[in-house]
């Protein structure tokens, strides 16, 4: 150990985390897009002079943390430190350099002290619009998904690039929001800069090198110890999703050894001809997050935590697609990857995994003219039930992205719809010793004067979330338009008076249903969460 004792090091480390917390708070409060403010679809981190992630906010979107790490590497490869100047801020939304989705803008600002770069502030936030077809699952290549900005200096020596901002404005439907969010990200970096320099001044630090080294090494050690608690071996699983025209399967093998954890997606279906695909960078980030929730190393997560983890997949399969394959629906893909990892490790550490989660959050885009005569583009989000927990029933929670479902009163006061139902779906949680989380309904009646454009991107309408350790599958989701069942990925025009019924799927159960506590079964029946028929069939409930 160098000059940093275990007291001072802990204090400094916490301080770096709290700096990122303040920066993230600044970003959330100044961002415009509801995607950012309501769904926390952003992250804001601190990297050391080598570009390694050393601190991030506690409530930061985990999938973005891992992918930001990779984005920073790409930034520095393209524009190494000797090409950077104080006041520069780099930007890209290139899916293969960032989060595998065009709508995410990554920004990075080098933080200077006494003429050298001591750290980097980096952030990513989901933009509601980058041009193109608005995240349609039907895009056939990346060019339909919007305008791709290669790595560039969005701020140069402290000045915003007039040309770039004009190009961005000219290519989006809601330029004020898109540009406002980019400024919010930049402002968050400035907060990081100010707080970091205050901290380094107060403590008399010239650089963060030793501090960063200790943080990374100690986090790596803690992660390795946590991994050692998992029985070594090779564990396999596969998960099937509805897909768009055809089902696709994600195969997964997790190797647990003294080297660490390796996830291999060999055997996964080939890339889809639509946008239901993901780049390895983002699959890797979400997979690592899933592994951290299983291992629970007990430290803040940073580059050191992720060092013992590796994720690979054959090129060209749907979790490792290459340019110019479309990737707009990648969020749907990664949650299945997380489920596959839980499923694979369920035989090794059943009390550390969730059962299969129902579905990634369903995004539904609606667009038209609202009751005030103004144009609107909004997204309805709907979460399904999470898988049952090893010691408790499943919940409805945003996972792996902590997205909030659309709430009724705010939605109706902005958009030309009346919501006719928003409630748990009976019998939707998979039976088990612990029941899967229930799905929820959202039934909308169109009250617009003109037709409203609707784009669906739902999943698990045909392939249910399975249970683990003997638990049973949850119910599939359901989408119907005026009573007619849909496949779940359509785009169409909703006419005034039309009814769209959305019912999200339930999560899988954990453990055998026969072992469920009788009082819990009785309680579910009394609550109407489980019908009498289902209770008798699945749990052998004797009542009537």
């Amino acid at each position, binding site marked *: 150990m160098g000059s940093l004792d275990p007291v001072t090091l*802990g*204090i400094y480390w916490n301080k770096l985390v709290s700096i990122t917390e303040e920066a993230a*708070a600044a970003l959330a409060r100044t*961002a415009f*897009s509801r995607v950012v403010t309501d769904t926390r679809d952003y992250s804001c981190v601190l990297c050391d002079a080598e570009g390694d992630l050393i601190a991030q906010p506690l409530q930061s979107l985990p999938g973005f943390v891992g992918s930001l790490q990779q984005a920073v590497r790409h930034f520095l490869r393209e524009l190494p430190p000797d090409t950077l100047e104080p006041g520069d801020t780099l930007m890209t939304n290139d899916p293969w350099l960032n989060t595998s989705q065009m709508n995410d803008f990554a920004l990075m600002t080098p933080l200077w002290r006494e003429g050298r770069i001591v750290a980097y502030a980096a952030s990513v936030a989901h933009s509601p619009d980058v041009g193109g077809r608005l995240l349609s699952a039907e895009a056939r290549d990346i060019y339909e998904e919007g305008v791709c900005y290669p790595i560039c200096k969005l701020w140069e020596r402290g000045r915003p690039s007039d040309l770039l901002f004009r190009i961005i404005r000219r290519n989006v439907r809601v330029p004020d929001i898109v540009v406002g969010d980019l400024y919010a990200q930049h402002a968050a970096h400035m907060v990081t800069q100010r707080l970091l320099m205050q901290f380094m001044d107060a403590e008399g630090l010239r650089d963060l090198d030793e501090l960063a080294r200790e943080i990374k090494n100690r986090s790596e050690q*803690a992660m390795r110890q946590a991994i050692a608690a998992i029985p070594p071996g090779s564990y396999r699983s596969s998960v099937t999703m509805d897909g768009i025209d055809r089902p696709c399967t994600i195969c997964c093998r997790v190797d647990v050894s003294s080297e660490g954890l390796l996830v291999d997606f060999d055997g996964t279906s080939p890339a889809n001809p639509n946008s239901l695909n993901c780049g390895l960078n983002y699959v890797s980030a979400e997979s690592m997050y899933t592994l951290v929730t299983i291992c629970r*190393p007990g430290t803040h997560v940073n580059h050191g935590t992720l060092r013992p983890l590796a994720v690979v997949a054959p090129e060209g399969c749907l979790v490792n697609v290459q340019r110019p394959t479309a990737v707009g629906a990648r969020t749907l893909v990664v949650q299945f990857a997380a489920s596959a990892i839980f499923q694979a490790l369920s035989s090794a550490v059943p009390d550390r995994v969730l059962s299969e989660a129902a579905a990634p959050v369903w995004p539904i885009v609606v667009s038209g003219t609202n009751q005030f005569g103004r144009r609107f583009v909004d997204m309805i989000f709907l979460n399904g039930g999470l898988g049952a927990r090893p010691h408790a029933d499943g919940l409805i*929670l945003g996972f792996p992205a902590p997205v909030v479902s659309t709430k009724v009163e705010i939605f109706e006061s902005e958009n030309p719809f009346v919501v006719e139902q928003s409630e*748990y779906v009976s019998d939707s949680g998979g039976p088990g010793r612990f029941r899967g989380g229930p799905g929820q309904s959202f039934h909308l009646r169109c009250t617009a004067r003109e037709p409203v454009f609707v784009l669906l991107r739902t999943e698990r309408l045909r392939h249910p979330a399975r249970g683990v350790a003997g638990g049973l599958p949850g119910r599939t989701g359901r989408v119907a338009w005026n009573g007619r069942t849909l496949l779940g990925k359509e785009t169409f025009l909703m006419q005034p008076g039309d009814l769209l019924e959305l019912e999200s799927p339930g999560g899988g159960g954990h453990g055998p249903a026969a072992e469920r506590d009788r009082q819990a079964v009785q309680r579910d029946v009394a609550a109407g969460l489980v019908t009498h028929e289902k209770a008798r069939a699945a749990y052998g409930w004797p009542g009537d």
Partner: protein
Amino acid sequence: MRGYTVCVDVGGTFVDLALFEGEVAVGFHKVLNVPSAPEQAALHGLRELLAATGTPAAALDDVIYATTLAVNAVVERRGAPTALLTTQGFRDALEIRTEQPYDLYNLFGPFPEPLVPRRLRLGVAERTLYDGTIARPPQRERVAEVAAALRRAGVASVAVCFLHSYANSASEEAVAGWLAEELPGVPASLSSRVLPEIGEYGRASTTVVNAYVLPLIGRHLARLDAGLRELGFGGRLLVVTSAGGMMGRQVAAELPVKLLESGPASGAVGVAALLEAKGAGDGDAVTFDMGGTTAKTSIVIDGRPLVTTEYEVGRVERFKRGSGLLVRMPTVDIVEVGAGGGSIAYVDAAGLLAVGPRSAGAEPGPACYGRGGDLPTVTDADLLLGLLNAAYFLGGTFPLDAELARRAVARHVATPLGLAVEEAAAGIFRVVNANMAQAVGVHAAEKGVNVQRCALVAIGGAGPVHACAVARQLGIRRVVVPDKAGVFSALGCRTVPPAFEHVTSYRALLDEVDLPRLDALYGRMEEHCLANLVGAAAPERVRFGYAVDVQYAGQRSYLTVPFAKPSSGFHRATLAAITRTFEEAYEVSYHRRIPGVPLEALSWRLRAEEPLPTRWPRLAAGAAGLLGRPAGAGGPGGPADQGRQGGSAPGDAPRTRAVYFPEHGFVAARVCRGRARLARERLAGPAVIEDEETTVVVPPGAVADVGDDLTVTIVL
């Protein structure tokens, strides 16, 4: 004989009382609470206090009352069997919550059970639209059906929360009328009365909390009132609100959700009054209240505590935002920044020293309590660092065992980290101070407050021990330690004005606000607030405070912007003024404005208040606590026996002892016992002032002034 007031603050363990003649405090008392009958404990304490001071109950004008009973009933789930009626098809908003994990890396953690289980959440076919149009009125037959089911289920309280009832309450009112006939004696809490604010989850959650504690609080206040009358009391029983106002007993019994945080709110209002009296920190302050099991902070700006519109009760994980039940109600913004003196120190997964959030609490407590706790805590470290005197903890009534502290710190911290015991103890002190300072700093930053302009007001047993170290980290230069900190909230009650707040949502672009509608909305709110304002005050003495939640259209976080309402009614100039205030406030918070984006109003707020001269009470010479110690005293957190303060002989304490200071290590510090002897004196640090209820630590280079009223003001 009239002109007396008594303030009663019922906490979890103790009941604190303070008696005033006019504005002068003439007596204090502290008795153990009786959780099964808190009104009896309060009445018992009151009788003793009145007897000791020879004050007849008939001489009391007001009893001002603060209590944790409601919040404890929620935390301990001792409320009434409660039902929730919702619009049919929407009964799960309460349980679905915000769908946000409060810890992204722990997917297995528990969430609080909703106060109303699903079988008691029932739908009524009815529908009101966002603009207040009633698309479908409720039917009496369905309500009768529901009432029958609730009767069978033994429901004792009902919450009603229909969609968009903030825009039109008619359907909720109709149902309440039928329920009163169908379920006589079962009170109904309507969301349109409790909180007519947009957002079905927040409104339902708040209304349900109200319904859940309503029967309990109603009975409690009625019994307390009856007990007071029996004593001969003929004045008003007033209850402190979470927002730092007073309301009458009847209003409190109908809206108990308003009194959840009455004790802490009294304390915060008291701090504001104290600062005003001291002229300290330009009226801006950060409070730092550190006790055995918790450390809390709040912020006072321009002589008023900051109030938040939203907070949580009954968190399943104490320091995790989002793990509790949501209550949207004006509340003095008090946040927990640490687990207090009982916080346990350990070596974490990274091999580093960490402190808390796990706490040894009061039982078994720190190792040095000698009650079987063998884990090292902050209090143990404080003892080993010379900050505390083992022989004079709680005035010597509760001796501490330094050897047990040494053993615990050695075993769990020093040995694993390869440090000397004193180094380890110093580490614990530094880490816990850094954690608390950071939490205070983040809270202040979130509020857009520059803490360096504030004074730090330290209360609680451990507050004055850590205050200067925490202040230094925050860049705060002035620390204020009030006297009588043991009954601080009871003193604070005396400074709380009669007040009532209300809110109504009317969402519109500011440019498109319908002015006649706004006039009508405020006409109703003013009437409502006046009707609920205690004391039938002369209208000309009532001050109305107007504010509105405003955001840039499209953003999702609003600022609450105060404005002045013209007596001639609203006009466009009012809205222009709101726009200017919002833009200025936004710039302060976010360092920019966003030209060209329209502003949107969400909810309109009103506070009616009858201002008091909010002076900090003078303490009468010889104002005494009484009658020795109550039964069961002598444990940690034990009572302050004010009368004995400073009574020890000068030879009792050594003149100096070695005390640890982060920037200096151990240095010889002057030790003064009892601040009563130090009135009007100036002390140069390093020094410690040992009181019975706390120890004031003055670091080297700092200067402490002890005022007439024994308030200690330290300049760093």
